[in-house]
């Protein structure tokens, strides 16, 4: 009897397992090979093409891509494009393993600075789609720069990635604190003074509102790099074969950041940093008064916090000294896999999405990004819905290319920012932090 029971149990489990297997496998396979709507009449005339598009996960961006895909499908019957998204870290991992195996999607979203790393495994753009010269005429130099490798074009940018200088400002808090609004900052000390006045703490002494939060990986790193340049230094050696992070200018800049925390008290770097109370969220939760973050976070914030009631706007900071020189880092764009069976259609989509002025405008509006095309940036529609872009236009000409690093993400996110954070939190001295940055960043050349 007992034996029958066990066998019966095994059979039930087996059936369950198979059922679960079916349940998980079937929908997945249909998602992978989507069948275009059956239209027997046209099926023979135009062979149905289905493409996959991979992007990193960002709600505002993805909305932009969905709209582009719909528009493209409307004008290209028989073509279907599926969007697959991955979290940022997962996306990198997926690209690096899928590409050697030749399993990547037909169209790949790429960050401009990554393109050099992946160029071997990407399809160069045919001249019939666009030549390098045409591209250089169409786009700003910084964003297209990342996609030109050894004189060949590997993709088209969809945005101008500018992590430097832009801050979200909470108008409601300004008015409550009785400060001049809109802010009339002449120097960075003016910003710190406002930040100090806007900071709030509870009765236990815990900071509840950070006056000026610049402590996230992109803002901290890029304001540090820009500061070094503005103070007259450079983080590259003369022939660009190594980093020089241990310079007097770098020291001055990092010391300034540390003073902002320890002397001015505009920010508690333990409670507000990249992992806890990330500025892009904390601002829209009313816990940051001046929040240093790229424009791309605006659309995301509006999307995620529809109920945020405070009034706010986006401004650009004054420079540390002299011209607002800064480093720009290309931007997100689209590339095509050489393993795609329909490269022609894939390129058509890339051009449709990134080079058509109307579509590019639509994408920038949906994703809240700065246009990579000057003509789009000048559009009145941009000025109307995203006034901050108009403000950004004044500093964009000062943008320099970041420079080709062996591993850009490693240097920025795992070396530069962690040590800046250490200095801000007081667990490393300014000198130690810079020495460590210099050592570790130069070790990435090996």
């Amino acid at each position, binding site marked *: 009897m007992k034996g029958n029971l066990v066998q019966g149990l095994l059979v039930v489990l087996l059936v369950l397992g198979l059922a679960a297997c079916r349940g998980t496998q079937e929908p997945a396979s249909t998602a992978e090979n989507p069948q275009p709507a059956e239209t027997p009449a046209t099926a023979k005339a135009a062979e149905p093409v289905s493409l996959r598009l991979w992007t990193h996960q960002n709600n505002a961006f993805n909305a932009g891509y969905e709209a582009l895909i719909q528009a493209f499908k409307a004008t290209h019957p028989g073509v279907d494009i599926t969007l697959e998204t991955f979290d940022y*870290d997962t996306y*990198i*991992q997926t690209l*690096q*393993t899928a*590409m*050697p195996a030749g399993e990547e999607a037909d169209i790949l979203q790429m960050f401009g600075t990554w393109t050099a*790393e992946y160029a*071997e495994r990407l399809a160069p753009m045919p001249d019939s789609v666009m030549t390098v010269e045409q591209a250089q005429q169409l786009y700003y130099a910084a964003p297209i720069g990342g996609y030109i490798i050894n004189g060949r074009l590997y993709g088209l940018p969809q945005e101008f990635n500018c992590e430097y200088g832009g801050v979200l400002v909470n108008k409601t808090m300004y008015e409550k604190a009785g400060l001049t609004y809109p802010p009339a900052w002449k120097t960075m000390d003016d910003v710190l003074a406002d930040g100090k006045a806007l900071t709030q703490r509870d009765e*236990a*002494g*815990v900071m*509840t509102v950070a006056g000026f939060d610049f402590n996230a990986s992109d803002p901290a790193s890029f304001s540090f790099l820009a500061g070094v340049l503005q103070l007259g230094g450079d983080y590259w050696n003369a022939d660009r074969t190594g980093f020089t992070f241990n310079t007097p200018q770098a020291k001055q800049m990092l010391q300034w950041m540390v003073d902002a925390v320890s002397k001015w008290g505009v920010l508690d770097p*333990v*409670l507000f*940093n990249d*992992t*806890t109370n990330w500025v892009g969220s904390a601002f829209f939760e009313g816990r940051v008064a001046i929040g240093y973050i790229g424009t791309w976070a605006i659309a995301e914030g509006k999307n995620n916090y529809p109920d945020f009631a405070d009034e706010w706007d986006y401004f650009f900071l004054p420079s540390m000294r002299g011209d607002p020189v800064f480093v720009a880092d290309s931007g997100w764009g689209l590339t095509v896999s050489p393993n795609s069976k329909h490269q022609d259609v894939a390129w058509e989509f890339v051009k449709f999405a990134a080079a058509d002025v109307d579509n590019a405008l639509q994408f920038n509006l949906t994703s809240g990004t700065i246009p990579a095309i000057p003509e789009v940036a000048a559009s009145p529609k941009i000025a109307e819905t995203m006034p901050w872009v108009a403000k950004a236009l004044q500093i964009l000409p000062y943008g320099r290319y970041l420079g080709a690093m062996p*591993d850009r993400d*490693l240097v920025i996110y*795992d*070396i530069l920012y*962690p040590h800046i*954070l*250490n200095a801000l*939190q*007081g*667990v490393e001295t300014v000198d130690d932090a810079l020495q*460590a940055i210099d*050592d*570790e960043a130069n*070790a*990435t050349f*090996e």
Partner: protein
Amino acid sequence: MSTLTVGRAKKRGGLWVSQRRFILSVTIPMILYSGVGLFTIGWALVLAFFDYSPGRAGGPILGLGGSNPFVGLKHFANMIDGVSREATQFRISLRNTLIFALAVLPLNLAITLPLAALIESVDRRLKTAFRAIYFLPVITSSVGVAMMWGYLYDPQRGLFNAVIRLFGGTPVAWLSDPRAQFLGVSVAMWAVIGAYLWQDFGYNLVIFIAALQGIPQEFKDAALIDGANPRQVFRKITIPLLRPTLLFVCVMTMLSSFQVFDIIQVMTNGNPNNQTRVLVLDIYDNAFRYQRMGWAAAVSLVLVVIVMLVTIVQMRLLRTEWEY
């Protein structure tokens, strides 16, 4: 046995053939399958001596060679005195892993041993109930545990700081303050140790309860009659009889805490300032975030050597101890 001989005598040939066929049809797939396992281990060993990244094409055999060059002992030399980010992070991870394991063990025993004795002393039905509830965290997914505890530790909205505020204390940023220390170990490390202990103690607890049940009541009663008090009985009789279990538990606890990953990855991801970064997290990050698989394989080799050493020491100790 007698029936088997009878059977054999009758139709020896047929039986032997069918038995041998059965043995072969089970062992051959098994050997092939564990051959894959051996191949995997060999590959892991080899990787540790190459600068391998799956993103690069490399040579013809397993992508080794070419743009994934052989580097000999470079990774291991780098671990000892390299200045690169991965070298410093490895040394920090190794240190943290040792701290973690050495802190978890005594704390775990200090909780589980007395608790097991307490539970053992109560009424039988209550004992089952207590044991069942104390065991709950063990079967909870460690990711779930990390989520719960991450929120308990939340600096603004967590329960711990709420209690501290209630008594007028200063709230602590448990998982994110790199300056906060206790006994020379960062508070963030203590915080993850706390969560880990909470999840893990039930396991050792049931083992101790089972071991205590295995000690014959007559031993204790005899001692009681001789005038010993319960505490003396526990110290003089129970503990010595528990020694093999105790040793076993020590080693298992050590081994699993050397391999801690889930809770830390979810709660702190090694932050603040790498103060909770442990070896498995370091291996995972290097292999799958940075694609430095050669380096990650070298780090995992170090971890395996440590684990093996602990296991061997344990086996030696156990073998001698078992003969009480």
